[in-house]
């Protein structure tokens, strides 16, 4: 890592990296820019867009039409709730698979992942009927349950691969010292597992936040998250680029900011068993 490189090489690499990073980020940047424009200006050519008047008007219009904060809060509750419950269920399972592997551990893991392959569109009606009978339609608890189950395989997989990298010797040493199972988990394993758990949490909050099929189809007004908020702006009559941009910016901003601030943690535990 700490190899010396010439300044010239570093400058060239910097230039290339910045250009590519800018291109990749550009669609998001452009959306943010358009959100500060009027509808008429938003469809002009790029240069005219940049030189036109800036305003917050679209944001006011969007907030007036649909209550952003209620949708935002629903998104927070649903994504965080589903992930936390999934973690509670998954941590023991992942621990057991990582430290007491059986002959079938790999198969069980693969089977768990394969449950994610069912196309959601095909099972909407059965799930909808169940939700209706249990009174779960348009409730946050219903969505928490669905998203929790949906992401559970990924959560288990991530934790498992992370736990596996914790050296077994340390645990054995603890056992030698007479640590019980619970104190072993609490005092030895947990501190070492925190980065892995943190990045699992982050990744799954992102996945749950962005999930747009179940959240849109199982809610109406009370539990509707930001995905439903977006659906109100996607193709209305007349010009809509500025309002769509404002709504999009509002919908992705929280997770974007969270992701940026926690990217170190996200990266640290994000190995998926990819690193050895």
């Amino acid at each position, binding site marked *: 890592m700490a190899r010396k*490189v010439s300044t010239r090489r*570093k400058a060239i*690499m910097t230039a290339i*990296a*910045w250009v*590519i*990073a*800018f291109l*990749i*980020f550009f*669609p*998001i940047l*452009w*959306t943010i820019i358009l959100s500060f424009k009027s509808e008429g200006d938003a469809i002009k*050519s*790029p240069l005219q867009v940049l030189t036109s008047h800036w305003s917050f008007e679209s944001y006011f219009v969007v907030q007036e039409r649909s209550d952003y904060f209620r949708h935002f809060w629903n998104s927070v509750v649903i994504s965080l709730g589903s992930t936390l419950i999934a973690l509670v269920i*998954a941590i*023991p*399972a992942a621990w*057991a*698979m990582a*430290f*007491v592997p*059986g002959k079938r551990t790999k198969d*069980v893991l693969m089977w*768990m*992942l*394969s*449950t*994610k*392959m*069912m*196309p959601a*569109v*095909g*099972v909407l*009606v*059965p799930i909808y009927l169940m939700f209706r009978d249990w009174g779960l339609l348009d409730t946050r608890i219903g969505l928490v349950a669905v998203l929790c*189950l949906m992401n*559970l395989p990924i959560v288990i997989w991530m934790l498992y691969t992370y736990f596996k990298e914790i050296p077994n010797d340390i645990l054995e040493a603890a056992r030698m010292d007479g640590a019980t*199972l619970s104190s072993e988990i609490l005092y030895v394993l947990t501190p070492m597992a925190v980065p892995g758990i943190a990045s699992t949490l982050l990744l799954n909050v*992102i996945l749950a*936040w*962005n999930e747009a*099929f179940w959240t849109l189809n199982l809610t109406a007004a009370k539990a509707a998250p930001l995905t439903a908020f*977006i659906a109100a702006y996607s193709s209305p009559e007349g010009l809509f*680029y500025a309002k*769509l941009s404002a709504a999009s910016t509002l*919908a*992705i901003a929280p997770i*974007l900011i*969270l*992701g940026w601030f926690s*990217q170190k943690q996200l*990266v640290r535990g994000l*190995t*998926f068993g*990819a*690193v*050895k």
Partner: protein
Amino acid sequence: MSTQASRAAARLMISPSVILLLLWMAVPLGMTLWFSFQRYNLLMPGQGGFTGWDNYYYFLTDPAFFTALKNTLVLVGGVLLITVVGGILLALLLDQQIFGQGIVRVLVIAPFFVMPTVSALVWKNMFFNPVNGIFAHIAQAIGLPPFDFLAQAPMLSITLIVAWQWLPFATLILLTALQSLDSEQLEAAEMDGAGAFSRFFYIMLPHLARAATVVILIQTIFLLSTFAEILVTTNGGPGNASTTLTYLVYVQSLLQFDVGGGAAGGIIAVILANIVAIFLMRMIGKNLEA
């Protein structure tokens, strides 16, 4: 070094997950299987009854079925190709010493945080639109006729959108793997006179293989169910040009509200997905053991 007791404890710890997932898989799957043999259209109550293999027959003989199969493969394959190759290149770049590395990394991973619906809407309207989109404005500025991406090259356009979303994910995993590479090994190779290319092909690439398989596995699972991007941009068209298997199931079950037909399509999709899964897991399994 596991004792009888710890084995029992382990089983106890795994069981909630297994039972929940079993229910989550078995109950909808069971219901879907049941519905797939029923004549059941939500819009026509009272027309029920067992219908044998009819729903399967109609789904498999749908004129769009083989196109959908092909498009699904094109989409998954295309996105995997772009993200793995692009991800390796990006990871190599981000691994270099550059000014403002933190900011560059933040910009590169940003697309991963964007909702699929939002990214599809943004690409469709602000970029691909042949009159008001940025590409149209650029084409106009240099005197070319505007290209109507979503009509002329629908699969390519959708693949690009999806690849844009998944590129950061691949990059992150591959970067993590790259950074774990022993730098002494690289330096030793360099001393032995190995050029940049041979260092890349003989040391880095084999090291990245494991990360790449993980990227492929995780992404395939998500890509097989790509749906929002197609619904928002092309609605599966023009014609059937961008209809995938998932989209075809959607047409049956939520456009036609033919629960029976949709269920049959769902079962077929599950079977095909599992064939892909078995194939994948063979590959991954080998790589993960190594």
